């Protein structure tokens, strides 16, 4: 399997009150063609900043890539000019965001906005564009798209707006779709609709996806590969089954344990009454400790963890399962 997108040693900094601060540090991963990579982590861990770096959408003046490479079909996007990036965005790599209400312009009809996306990249006549718009809206499962094209965003429900966003993202047949928490603002039954739509489209269009989420349930359902992020770094990465069956970083284990599990329909009694919470809070990017960034919340911490930053090392060559931890943890029992 060839990798379509390779990120190598990416560091991204933002300008804060106290100067430049690394929100993403030394992040490396690759996404194989036609597969889904999930970036998981809590708020502020750098998952969205990573996505914005790939898209070249960092806020000018306040955000910049300080190191690393983003290889897309042999070219390094980090050195691309704005104009060259504009050709990549939408056509090659497209993105959808969490809040479909704020990402759509309230004063234009949805048809207008989808048409704009097409007209920007493709040389088509007006009627061709109109047809393509209706076709796209149909593809994302919007009912009676011929009428819906003239609706304004406020006339649509949250789920339908997200479908429109997906239609816009797909308008130029991108190779890669980056979805940043696409279902977080939606109800669970609507989330199920959108996730199954994304899966279906991926298969039909042979699309590669980077899905950013904090919901481990969504990861288990969607991902082929997973990268778990904590305080700007990847702490564990590997194929989805490895991450869930053999999680090897204390943070990944902590995340899996702190989510209540639905009781198994076949088990006789309800499970334990107490959740195993991860103590403490994520360190501020201003006050990162020396050594491992998870040390203050980790139950396996030792003197060595505070000496220097553990490297992200491959644990299992066969499956490319990498972990940023000095400890070799016992076998995992959920």
């Amino acid at each position, binding site marked *: 399997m060839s990798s379509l997108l390779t990120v190598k040693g990416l560091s991204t900094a933002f300008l804060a009150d106290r100067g430049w601060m690394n929100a993403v540090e030394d992040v490396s991963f690759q996404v194989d063609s036609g597969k889904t990579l999930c970036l998981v982590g*809590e*708020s502020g861990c750098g998952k969205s900043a990573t996505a914005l770096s790939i898209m070249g959408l960092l806020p000018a003046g306040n955000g910049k890539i300080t190191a690393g490479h983003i290889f897309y079909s042999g070219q390094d996007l980090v050195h691309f000019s704005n104009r060259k990036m504009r050709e990549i965005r939408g056509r090659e790599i497209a993105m959808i965001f969490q809040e479909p209400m704020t990402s759509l312009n309230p004063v234009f009809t949805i048809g207008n906005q989808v048409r704009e996306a097409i007209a920007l990249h493709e040389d088509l006549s007006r009627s061709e564009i109109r047809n393509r718009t209706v076709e796209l809206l149909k593809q994302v499962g919007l*009912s009676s798209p011929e009428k819906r094209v003239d609706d304004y965003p406020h006339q649509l*429900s949250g*789920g*339908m707006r997200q479908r429109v966003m997906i239609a816009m993202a797909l308008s130029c047949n991108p190779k890669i779709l980056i979805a940043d928490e696409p279902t977080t603002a939606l*109800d*669970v*039954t*609507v*989330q*199920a*609709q959108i*996730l*199954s739509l994304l899966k279906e489209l991926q298969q039909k269009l042979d699309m590669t996806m980077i899905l950013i989420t*904090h*919901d*481990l*349930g*969504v990861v*288990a*359902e969607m*991902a082929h590969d997973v990268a778990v992020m904590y305080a700007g770094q990847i702490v564990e990465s590997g194929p*989805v*089954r490895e991450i*869930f069956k053999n999680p090897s970083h204390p943070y990944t284990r*902590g*995340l*899996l*344990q*702190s*989510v*209540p*599990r*639905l*009781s198994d*329909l076949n088990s006789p009694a*309800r499970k334990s*009454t*107490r*959740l*195993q*919470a*991860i*103590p403490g*809070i*994520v360190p501020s990017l201003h006050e990162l400790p020396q050594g491992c960034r998870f040390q203050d919340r980790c139950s396996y911490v030792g003197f060595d963890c505070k000496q220097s930053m553990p490297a992200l090392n491959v644990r299992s060559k066969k499956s490319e399962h990498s972990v940023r931890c000095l400890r070799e943890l016992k076998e995992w029992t*959920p």
Partner: protein
Amino acid sequence: MSMTPPLLSVRNLSKSFQIQRGLLGRSVSRLQAVDGVSFDLFKGETLGLVGESGSGKSTLGRCLLRLMEADSGEVVFDGIHLSQLSAHEMRSMRKRMQIIFQDPYSSLNPRMTVKDILSEPLEIHGLYRERNLREKRIYELLDLCGLRRESIQKYPHEFSGGQRQRICIARALAVEPDFIVCDEPVSALDVSIQAQIINLLQDLQKDLGLTYLFIAHDLKVVEHISSRVAVMYFGKIVESADADELYRNPKHPYTQALLSSIPVLDPDAKHTKIVLPGDPPSPLSPPMGCSFHKRCIKAQAVCSEKRPNLDDLKVQGRVKPHLAACHFAK
């Protein structure tokens, strides 16, 4: 049913909002947010209330405390009919009934220190009037909710989301309530922090004998914390039962779809999802009959004509009732 009378008894509670549409606000339509809801809540129990956005869960929670006035129906708290109380009497009643909100950022006054925030309810209800005693009480509350004692002089912006929610909980506990409405208390928090707050709420319940109405849309959290669960759809309770029973043996097609849409933490899980067609109907033009019939896989002609009652299904082997509002639930 239990012999002890319920702590809180709700009968036929309804609440609608006026929506103005059109020019000059002439055509006025009503949105029925809560539609004839009845349930009992016993001391020391947690009733989980689940439902999707717009199903009326939060409105219901607010109507219980009369933070919003219901249109009709009765709320009886410990034998007292709340609707008959004057505003003044209701205020002293709130000493026993408190609420915790979803967003710990907007529910704390940014200009007040933690000390002010926790003193306010004590002051309003005339508790711990003496300075030393009041200070002692505040330290007690901080200890109880896992906050450092130094926090007392700090402002809300100096805390993380989880810590702020702890302050909100401490504020609710300050007046020693019997009953707390928890309105999505963990949905704004990160997963690792969610677990901390859920554990705290459970410990407090055990130690102080609290009764909770736990409103949330996260079905996993609700199962974990609740002894009983009620599912709301479109302003009505469509199913309620013991948490065990409801999650293992859901009877209403909506509950079944809801439970099947939860993503499971197992990449190998092969469960069949019931993906509901369409969106929830507009609350301004509710469908006739059962409000779920347009999205329901079991719908028949009768569903669009007759509204089903919330009846006990008399499930075999269950002592406590398992209620469902569906013509075809057995």
